[in-house]
């Protein structure tokens, strides 16, 4: 007991000292993985994100250098109010330094504000909304993996070029769906296409037949699915049932994850085009990581790009605080340093972080393989195009982010 109390005093003293900036050698870090652990997005983030954080910590070698790293994880249930309550508790009581994953755009925007107010850090690998690095950008947030602008830019442009010049949207009715529809519409119009209608459906719907019939009646060449997770898989499955693809209309999965393709099966998913920034079978580095990851997953799943992003983001974070010689517990300061250093890891390759918090790396346009082309479980994608990082994301000249100096 005595030891515990003295340890507590020591800890408090250290924290105070670090707070005053007098001692830079505070080597404690607390990482919070805030994600959907039980709902429709839990396969693409969830426990896999926590595992990725764990692996990043083990691989960093920081423990051997005297660092003490803790990882906590919580389920935000896709509800912004629950997420901010947890986030507040984490920052105020548990002294969490950095938030990882934070999927769901509604949740991400809410946590984004809190993290800025409390000067913590968020490396967002899960949410899609491009607002995180545009109007809502923050000196404490880095948007790591993908965003709606990039998805729209890559998939949208490719489909319009291939002749899909009339669009109808099926949109999940919350921040993410709205952002994705807005950004895709902009790209479609810019590329010479036309949006002839759309319908907004509630998040987590199980029946899409009504919406699909409306899409079918619109006669649009492309039905853009501005939704994700279980909503997208059910849409695709039911579209096949209603003969939508057989009738000549094409489905555009604007945001699809490998876990979705796995769950649909190749027979239903074959031929879909969509964009991701990570695939386990891209190169030796991604394969080696994914193999280790999959062995430790309960259902032997390969990592999604969200989970891979958690690993990659933390690798860079660890590198940065190690270079700083200690954890200043000052979110904006660490993020500024992270933006100075170039990023480099086995999963996303070499890259940079822009002033607006956008992490830059290439975007890959994939097509889902036919069942005959697949050599086994998780062998699902064919790479059909690569957009270099500088062109994949919103150019800084169009940015509404106040952090960008013009």
């Amino acid at each position, binding site marked *: 007991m005595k030891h515990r109390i003295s340890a507590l005093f020591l800890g408090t003293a250290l924290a105070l000292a670090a707070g005053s900036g007098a001692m830079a050698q505070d080597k404690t870090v607390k990482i919070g993985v805030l994600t959907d652990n039980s709902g429709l997005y839990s396969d693409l983030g969830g426990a896999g994100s926590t595992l990725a954080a764990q692996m990043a910590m083990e691989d960093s070698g920081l423990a051997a250098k005297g660092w003490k790293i803790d990882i906590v994880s919580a389920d935000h249930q896709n509800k912004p109010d629950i997420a901010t309550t947890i986030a507040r508790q984490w920052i105020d009581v548990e002294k969490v330094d950095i938030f990882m994953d934070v999927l769901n755009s509604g949740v991400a925007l809410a946590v984004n504000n809190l993290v800025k107010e409390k000067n913590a850090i968020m490396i967002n690998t899960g949410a899609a909304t491009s607002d995180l690095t545009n109007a809502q950008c923050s000196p404490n947030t880095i948007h790591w993996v993908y965003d709606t602008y990039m998805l729209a830019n890559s998939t949208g442009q490719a489909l319009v070029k291939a002749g899909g010049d009339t669009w109808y949207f099926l949109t999940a009715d919350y921040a993410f769906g709205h952002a994705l529809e807005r950004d895709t519409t902009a790209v479609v119009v810019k590329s010479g296409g036309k949006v002839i209608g759309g319908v907004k*459906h509630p998040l987590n719907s199980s029946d899409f037949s009504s919406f699909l019939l409306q899409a079918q009646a619109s006669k649009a060449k492309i039905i853009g699915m501005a939704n994700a997770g279980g909503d997208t898989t059910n849409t695709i499955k039911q579209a096949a049932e209603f*003969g939508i693809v057989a*009738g000549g209309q094409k489905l555009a999965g604007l945001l699809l994850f490998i876990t*979705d393709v796995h769950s649909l099966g190749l027979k239903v998913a074959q031929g879909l085009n969509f964009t991701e920034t990570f695939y386990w079978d891209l190169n030796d580095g991604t394969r080696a990581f994914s193999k280790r990851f999959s062995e430790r997953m309960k259902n032997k799943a390969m990592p999604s790009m969200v989970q891979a992003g958690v690993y990659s983001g933390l690798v860079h974070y660890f590198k940065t605080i190690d270079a700083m010689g200690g954890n200043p517990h000052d979110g904006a300061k660490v993020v500024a340093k992270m933006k100075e250093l170039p990023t480099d890891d086995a999963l996303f390759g070499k890259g940079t972080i822009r002033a607006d918090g956008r992490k830059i790396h290439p975007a890959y346009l994939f097509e889902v393989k036919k069942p005959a082309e697949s050599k086994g479980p998780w062998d699902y994608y064919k790479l059909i195009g690569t957009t270099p990082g500088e062109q994949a994301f919103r150019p800084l000249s169009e940015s509404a982010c106040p952090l960008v100096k013009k």
Partner: protein
Amino acid sequence: MQALYAQLLVGLINGSFYALLSLGLAVIFGMLNIINFAHGALYMMGAFCAYFLLNLAGIGYWWALIIAPIVVGIFGMILERTMLQWLAGLDHLYGLLLTFGIALIVQGVFQNYFGSSGLPYAIPDYPQIGDWRGLQGGINLGFMFLPIYRGWVVIFSLVVCLATWFLIEKTQLGAYLRAATENPTLVRAFGINVPRMITLTYGLGVGLAALAGVLSAPINQVRPLMGADLIIVVFAVVVIGGMGSIMGSIITGFALGVIEGLTKYFYPEASNTVVFVLMVLVLLVKPTGLTGRAA
């Protein structure tokens, strides 16, 4: 106008799931006085059972329609024997809490092993007669493309619903059941094994849920949370129809499916709430539900 017909038909399809599920709930509530919150989880188990039958034993859809309800029904009867029977005579709340807990545990276990995105289950492609490939494909009705499978779901569930209603309201066995609910002691005096009958009734209600699960497996992904998403709506259906009323729950099930379908057409943003708005209105005007009798 064409679009409207199509939405009506689609609504009817969803309504058949509501009807099958709310019917099971109504049977269980009417006979056992238990608010069975595990119904969604049992529905999900039915779909998973079909998936396992196909992928582990090579047993296809048609057999799954029979086997899955029996397997899950037996699981239900074990639940009733080991847990639910001790709650007889207590307040409804105890049964509700117990079954809610069971639902959370069952869903948690499935999610732990199978994740949240679900597993694929295809529409059956046999028997093959001429151009027919089982229930795959569809028919162009002029105003819409009707997948054959959806048509099958409507007809099949309508038949099952009516058969259940007939069994309970028009047969000797049903008469015993209803009598046992009214006055178990008296019925026992006639030499009828009331506890066994109650167990079988619970099994029947659970079997109906599992059957709905098998029916929905080819339409929706087989997901651990497929029931949790549906069960709240189904409870609203039961409340609107009148707790424990067999015919009431069948008719309300189909009717609400149609109303929801129309909402998806006219004001899609409200399609998840329209059922609950109706529930509130019905409760305000007629607290026992549309066909319920005052207790």
